């Protein structure tokens, strides 16, 4: 099984030089810690910055410089700052090459649910619906099952949707999968996890073709 950092590390292998990338809250944020050598990417935060840098050193926090999680951040050399309407123009206009976000459920057709649990306090979708509706390349980072062991990779989502037919790839603690027109295609399995384990933990249609290699993380 992969831990949170290892999931992030595996997703970081998907980054390509020159990409603009939006990372959601939670595991996706950790992807920024594992940018492969020789690759330069620019992180967008949807509250209005391209070129988001690491957290500031103690004493150097600026209340006027935060990310979408309301955390204090720094700006990289070459960063740019803009308003919310411009920020979502670059998201809606497909100028951001990769979006990584968490999910409660993903369906075998790529639907995603990650903003609302009926009967529980609803906090809102923030920018998630805008991001998933427009991005061409969406990777979901999540655990394969919920706390009670129920699969989060389903035939159909049961929770209110955030977006339809949008997720392209999923990296879980157990596996790497592509979302294809025919279902979840198993690409890689976590060390110590068998194809049968993944099959058991996947409620939606799972496509297994040939030998499934182990995920490699340096």
């Amino acid at each position, binding site marked *: 099984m992969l831990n949170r950092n290892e999931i992030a590390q595996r997703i970081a292998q998907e980054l390509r030089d020159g990409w603009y990338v939006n990372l959601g809250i939670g595991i996706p944020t950790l992807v920024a810690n594992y940018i492969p050598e020789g690759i330069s990417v620019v992180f967008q935060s949807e509250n209005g*910055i391209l070129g988001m840098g690491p957290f500031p050193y103690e*004493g150097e926090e600026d209340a006027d410089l935060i*990310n979408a999680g309301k955390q*204090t951040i720094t700006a990289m050399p070459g960063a740019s*700052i803009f308003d919310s309407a411009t920020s979502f123009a670059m998201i809606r206009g497909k100028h951001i090459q990769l979006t990584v976000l968490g999910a409660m459920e993903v369906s075998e057709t790529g639907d995603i649910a990650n903003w609302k649990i009926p009967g529980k306090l609803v906090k*809102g979708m923030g920018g998630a*619906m805008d991001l998933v*509706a*427009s991005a061409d390349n969406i990777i979901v980072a999540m655990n394969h099952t919920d706390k009670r062991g129920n699969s989060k990779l389903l035939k159909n989502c049961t929770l209110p949707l955030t977006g*339809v037919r949008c997720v392209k790839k999923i990296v879980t603690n157990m596996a790497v999968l592509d979302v294809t027109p025919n279902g979840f295609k198993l690409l890689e399995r976590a060390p110590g996890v068998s194809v049968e384990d993944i099959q058991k933990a996947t409620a939606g249609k799972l496509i297994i073709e040939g030998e499934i290699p182990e995920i490699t993380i340096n």
Partner: protein
Amino acid sequence: MNKVVKNAEEAIQGIKDDMTLMVGGFGLCGIPENCITALVKSGIKGLTCISNNAGVDNFGLGLLLQNRQIRKMISSYVGENAEFARQMLKGELEVDLIPQGSLAARCQAAGMGVPAFFTPAGYGTEVAEGKEVRWFNGKPHILEAALEADFALVKAWKGDRFGNLIYKGTARNFNPAMAMGGKITIAEVEELVEPGVLDPNFIHTPGVFVQRIFQGEVYEKRIEQRTVRSKN
């Protein structure tokens, strides 16, 4: 031309019960602190507030919520406020949650003379319920209407007597779109200067969108999530 008013109390003249306000800011970053304080003192109630978030329990729009001055919130994310949650669960507060990009675009649209627009955000979700769907370039989009507001309250870093504004850092966020969207836009700034001082090449909000401006008395600029790394 002089759009300068003395202070926040004078700036909010004309805001009445049951009006709709756009309030700039993202979390507690770039919020019009002085106007909010003046609204709390005024006791004006029944407000509909269009704002990305609803503040925290004892700061930002949370102060107006505590005082029961807000009837309805139109926001994208409202998670950081226990009093908000309590009022919402008891049905005392109406809440309209909309995608963040659509929120910004709907505020801006009001000021651009665009009554509505099609966007892919929210298609196939409950946000799309009751909205017209149309396909462009092989993809479904939903019709979203401009958001109208009687007043917009925005906060900038520097401004001049003509209402030209410059923001600092990510405190810009929703402020420019809302400055455009409000029927009457009140700008509060950290530093008010004479026309000619600000370089016209670097104005973020042209003064035409601003009707009243004043220098705020104090800015607490509270940080919601202080995150730092150690120097070692």
